[in-house]
């Protein structure tokens, strides 16, 4: 336990997610982060301290009734990029970023729980997903302002829950404790207990945003397998042999083979 506390104390200082840069400096920033010994250690979660079973807060969770942070957010009044931004120069989002350091760090930790590093594929924070989340919730447009309320409330809820269950911020929790909370809120289904419904839905919005931000990066786009945006000389080649073969099987399974559209190959 004591060791755990020490670890967390160290973590607290170390996992300051680097903010203040836009993701468009991403290459530069990524290299800087890779060189830094601070961030990856925490974000990949080497939390080896043993944790007792009761420490997952299962008991606490059961007794927690629904709570919801009523945030007083001042509306974003900044202007947008306007109707005629220069589309050729690297774009700028003129509105100020609004997440605090603590919020950014929490976003980074959550984003990496959602999208951890897998082999050579970087984690969400390694490709600056938190910067995109910050840009999104700070934007002066209607949809983003709605998301701002949803997402900031979710962040506040998660820290409140961590405090109620474990008397610490979420970031300071052990992996196992974090996982306990995640297991309660990361599934928004018919079976989700009433007290987690609202947060599960809000967290779902956050999850979609993190996933989008991840897959929109060059690394994420490669990971999902998108192979377009490359000029092709001559006619469009159409599906590959493998893709046609798969279609044949699908048509057969669905009983549609005899209705197949004629293909000129």
């Amino acid at each position, binding site marked *: 336990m004591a060791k755990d506390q020490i670890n967390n104390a160290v973590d607290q200082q170390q996992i300051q997610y680097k903010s203040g840069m836009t993701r*468009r400096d991403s290459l530069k920033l990524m290299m800087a982060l890779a060189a830094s010994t601070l961030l990856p250690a925490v974000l990949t979660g080497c939390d080896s301290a043993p944790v007792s079973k009761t420490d997952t807060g299962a008991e606490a969770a059961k007794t927690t009734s629904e709570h919801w942070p009523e945030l007083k957010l001042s509306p974003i009044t900044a202007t947008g*990029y*306007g*109707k*005629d*931004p220069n*589309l*050729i120069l690297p*774009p*700028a*989002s003129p509105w100020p970023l609004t997440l605090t350091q603590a919020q950014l760090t929490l976003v980074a930790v959550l984003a990496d*729980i*959602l*999208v*951890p590093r*897998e082999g050579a594929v970087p984690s969400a924070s390694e490709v600056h997903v938190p910067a995109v989340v910050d840009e*999104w919730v700070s*934007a002066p*447009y209607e*949809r*983003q302002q709605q998301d701002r309320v949803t997402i900031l409330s979710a962040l506040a809820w998660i820290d409140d829950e961590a405090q109620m269950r474990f008397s610490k911020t979420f970031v300071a929790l052990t992996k196992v404790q974090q996982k306990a909370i*995640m297991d309660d809120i*990361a599934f928004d289904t018919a079976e989700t207990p009433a007290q987690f419904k609202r947060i599960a839905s809000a967290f779902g919005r956050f*999850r*979609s945003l993190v*996933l*989008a*931000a991840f*897959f*929109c990066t*060059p690394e*994420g*786009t490669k*990971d*999902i*397998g*998108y*192979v*377009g*945006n490359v*000029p*092709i000389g001559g*006619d*469009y*080649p*159409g*599906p*590959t042999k493998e*893709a046609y073969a*798969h*279609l044949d099987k*699908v*048509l057969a*399974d*669905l009983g*549609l*083979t005899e*209705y*197949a*559209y004629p293909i000129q190959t």
Partner: protein
Amino acid sequence: MKDFDFEVLVVGSGAGGSMAAYELTKAGHKVLMLEAGRDYDPKTETPMFKRNGEAPLMGAGTIDKDFGYYDATVDGGWNVPNEPYTAADGSEFLWWRARMLGGRTNHWGRYSLRFSEHDFKGKSRDGLGADWPFDYEDIAPWYDKTEALVGVCGTNTGLDDMPPSSDGILQPPPKPRITELLIAAAAKKLGIPLAPMHRAVLTRPLDNRAACFYATPCGHGCSIGAAFQTTTSLIPMAKATGNLQVITDAMVKSVDTDENGKVTGVSYVDKKTSTVHQLKAKVVILAASACESARLLLNSKSARFPQGLANSSGQVGKNLMDSTGANIGALVPALQGRPIYNEDGHTANHLFIPWWGHKAQERKELDFPRGYHFEIGGRFSEPNSGIAGYVQGYGPDLKRQVKQNYGAYIGFALRGEMVPNEHCYMDIDPEVKDKWGIPVARFHWKWSEHELNQVAHGLKTAKAIFAEMGADVGELPTPEQAILKGGEIIHEVGTTRMGASPKDSVTNQWGQSWDCPNLFVMDGGVFASNPHKNCTLTIMTLAMRNSSWLSAQLKQGAI
């Protein structure tokens, strides 16, 4: 333009205005074009290869850029700063405007389907709306000319909703995608055919324009000219004749007339200096887009034309139509985890579902009079802010879900014909004015049972096709819930309709206003009906045909 002795003044540089300018300048007439938006050069301004990830908010649409950050629309969209419009109580209408050289042709979908004989004579068949004052046969050769000039890919299908182009006119269509082939098989089982979409996209080089290289969202614009936009084709071609001059940032506020009712020219605001200028012209062609041209006419009042210019029939602003629209989609489990390949193609439909129900309508088996088509979507596209879809959990399994579902969502977009009704029109708001003091348009809107029944049919049909693909679209919304807002499909037409009689129409079949022989309308305002097939090919075809007629009149001294 003191040193340029022009004969014809064209208002607007979009599809209609540019085609008119092209046809007239080629025939040797000097043309001056006025465009309210800024000058725009696709060669240097088009963000063709830009990725969503580079854009603010992953390129998501905002009120500043409705169709996404890199969409080619500049200074336009549902909202145009300084240029409001209003809706009457209980009405909702969305009015899309582009304020740039080339207008909406810089970013339109380029779907280019011919209307058929059937489409031009709806009233003769079912008694609703109005017939056009000419037959398909009259316009067919002009469709050929327009398609050949613009560059349209597709094939002749023999389907009764798709009249054939003459041999050698259409460019070959690109191969269909897997998603489209699956839909085609599922639909065919229900007796519904799919066909290559006709699109104003070059699959072969044409004049100075390159063939498509199948890589970039056409909504960004196409600096190589493969996706048709007037700024890479008609305007430079017309300029090359030496007979065209263009003034941008020139907002026309009224059409001026003399005491005999003859049009003498226009007054416009130079937006850069906020000063008003008058220009004299022998002929004025309005091609500012349907509702903008109608607004101009209604605002051009005089003692002789107290209800607005060219409005002795009282029809200016009336008969406002849009296409019907509704979206329906689902995850198709059979497509999950399918083999990935480059599915960009020309980035819009290679196959689509044309209207197949003419015969059933003739037999009175359907409870709606006019047809619709489905545009279809679903491919391995570049990730955007909506890529995640409906997924659960966290960690490696979460990402696996998104990858499984990648390329497995299919969406149908219904586009249907609307019958004009007395509740759908525009007039001038008695109070509100724009920044330049020009009274603004006010919209009145209500869908009728025809459109609602049609959408209900479309939703049911789509559900059945999805079911054949093993997909469940869930409980269907009511048509009232599903139908998109008036104006939302951006095919607004009819406000200055053409007809056979000055009593119930604004122009004759040549787009010449009945009231003033030297005033023409060459945008979608002249449509007598709005078949489900997107309107722009027909706007251009009419502008070409009618400008050719106008040229002959000018040469004969008849105008």
